[in-house]
């Protein structure tokens, strides 16, 4: 077994690490305080080749694959998790188009998405719930050459700034994924949520009222929308969450470790006190374990394995990644005492961001349901 990353993946990690330290770290606090979506930073990540990191070169992507994507999200989230969240959610519709779209759709939308000129959101969750998309109420009535969409979607990340929405809707008793462009009459953003974390990645409520879109906006085969939506959540969403979780955990761990080496109590660094040291050791070990399990999941996607085969590996990655961040962040805040609660020191903001991983790409409980189903079969 060769556990080595390829030299391209190693170089990518170093490059994104440097980018995050140089261009994200100095602005993290200011961005969170303003709460505005950082279009200019997204453009920079596009210039770095990260937005299209899993997209074929012919559509302006860099085709580095899903493990590279996870590493990039991890390094970014180490410094500024909301941007990691942008990739986690923004890549959902992007990947659906890339995998199931027509040549025409791909040529039209993928290059601007890869260049950071367009943003796409994924609209699945409804007021009735998100854990079970089969209860989707939003309808897309087929009338001649058009879909007429009616319904409401809630907690849709990026909807407020997106140029495109990838909408899961019911046609008769089957599901379709349909592209809706911003500004289409009958499509409105009705509200923005005020959330604990991820302050710069807007989460919105959207409404469709007799929204007419051409039939050619259908992504993939008619009636196959549910499978497309769910596979995107798995391949893209859950791996993204694992990456964000790893990044948040590492960022908090590194900050706490540095603090523990410098802060003195009873004449020596607090890191020499066993209780603190053991807490840091726990973080260290759990991060490593989560890392390898998550990398393995992403690596298998790159090997071409199907969702059916690796859905459980991916669910494990999301499960652990989310738990990891939510364990490490509060502990780091604790170790850093008063400093841990100060906005300037970043750990407390990462703690708030970590909370958002709970419902992202499926709740922790849904992950267990997925794994449970598999082991009981």
């Amino acid at each position: 077994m060769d556990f080595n990353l390829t030299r391209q993946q190693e170089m990518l990690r170093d490059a994104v690490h440097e980018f995050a330290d140089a261009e994200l770290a100095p602005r993290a606090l200011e961005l969170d305080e303003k709460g505005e979506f950082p279009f200019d930073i997204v453009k920079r990540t596009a210039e770095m080749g990260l937005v299209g990191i899993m997209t074929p070169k012919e559509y302006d992507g860099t085709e580095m694959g899903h493990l590279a994507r996870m590493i990039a999200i991890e390094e970014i989230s180490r410094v500024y998790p909301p941007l990691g969240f942008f990739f986690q959610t923004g890549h959902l519709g992007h990947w659906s188009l890339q995998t199931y779209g027509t040549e025409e759709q791909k040529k039209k939308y993928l290059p601007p998405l890869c260049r950071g000129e367009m943003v796409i959101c994924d609209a699945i969750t409804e007021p009735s719930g998100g854990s079970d998309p089969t209860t989707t109420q939003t309808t897309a009535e087929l009338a001649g050459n058009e879909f007429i969409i009616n319904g409401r979607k809630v907690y849709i990340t990026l909807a407020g700034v997106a140029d495109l929405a990838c909408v899961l809707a019911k046609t008769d008793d089957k599901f379709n994924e349909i592209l809706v462009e911003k500004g289409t009459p009958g499509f409105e953003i009705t509200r923005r949520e005020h959330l604990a974390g991820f302050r710069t990645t807007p989460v919105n409520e959207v409404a469709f009222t007799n929204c007419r879109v051409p039939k050619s906006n259908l992504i993939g085969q008619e009636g196959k929308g549910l499978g497309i939506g769910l596979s995107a959540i798995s391949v893209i969403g859950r791996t993204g969450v694992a990456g964000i979780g790893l990044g948040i955990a590492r960022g908090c761990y590194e900050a706490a470790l540095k603090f523990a080496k410098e802060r003195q109590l009873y004449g020596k660094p607090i890191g020499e006190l066993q209780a603190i040291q053991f807490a840091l050791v726990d973080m260290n070990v759990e991060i490593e374990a989560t890392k390898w399990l998550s990398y393995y999941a992403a690596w298998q996607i790159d090997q071409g394995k199907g969702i059916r085969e690796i859905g459980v590996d991916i669910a494990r990655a999301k499960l652990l990644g989310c738990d990891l961040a939510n364990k490490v962040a509060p502990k780091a805040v604790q170790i850093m005492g008063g400093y841990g609660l100060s906005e300037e020191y970043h750990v407390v903001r990462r703690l708030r961001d970590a909370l958002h991983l709970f419902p992202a790409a499926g709740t922790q409980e849904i992950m267990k349901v997925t794994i449970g189903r598999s082991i009981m079969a």
Partner: protein
Amino acid sequence: MAVDIIVCIKQVPNPEHFSKISLDPVTKTINREGIPVITNPWDKNALEEGLRIRERFSGKVVVLSMGPPQTRKSLEEALAMGADEAFLLCDRAFAAADTLATAYTLARGIQKIGHFDLVLCGNETVDSGTGQVGPQIAQFLSITCVTNVKEITFQEERKLIVKRALESGHMKVKVELPALLAVGQEINKPRLITAFGIMQAAEREPRVWGCEDIGAERDSIGGEGSPTRVLETLEHRPKRKGKIMTGSPEEMVKKAIERLREMGGLI
């Protein structure tokens, strides 16, 4: 007008970890194992300048380094940054070289690469910081050199105006190519490596050359070719028998000033 550029780079231990470098008390050798390495930051400025010149004119940017096998990583990064080709001069015989032997070796490497109009390098390295290799390479190549360059402007084919930083001010120098320019860090901000660059460089590998490949004379390379050698290495921990003041903050300050007065430190 094409300007062919050769950039010399060096891989050095990461300065943030210098305190971990230890001295083996028995063998008296420096132990650098496990210390993370980086490309000398000044050399990245040199490479960046080379890439900017190539963007304006055509030509090739070739990167060259002398070092142990792990130096590959720095050369791969240089390729990912945009260099066209990379060469690693790697041979046991090159080891233990002082700046003269290093410069000779690099000059032979440059001659083996072939045609060039401009050689660029960082003004100094963060580890030894001598700043000597640049001018010495120039001498071996029989070309002129200007160090501490903070700005390069092309006037016409093969004629440049170069600004060299001085301690207080700067010097304007007219340069006719071929030449070697050693650049300072203020000359530019090196670009970040992108996924685009990484993938474009995926097919390119640094080529490795040894002593025979570059036709180097054995007595001019490595330890043999080094007029200077280290006689002794000692750990340096300067100590003074100082006094730490005691008492309340006010008392400590008063005592410190009194002591300063006694020692003649106050005018």
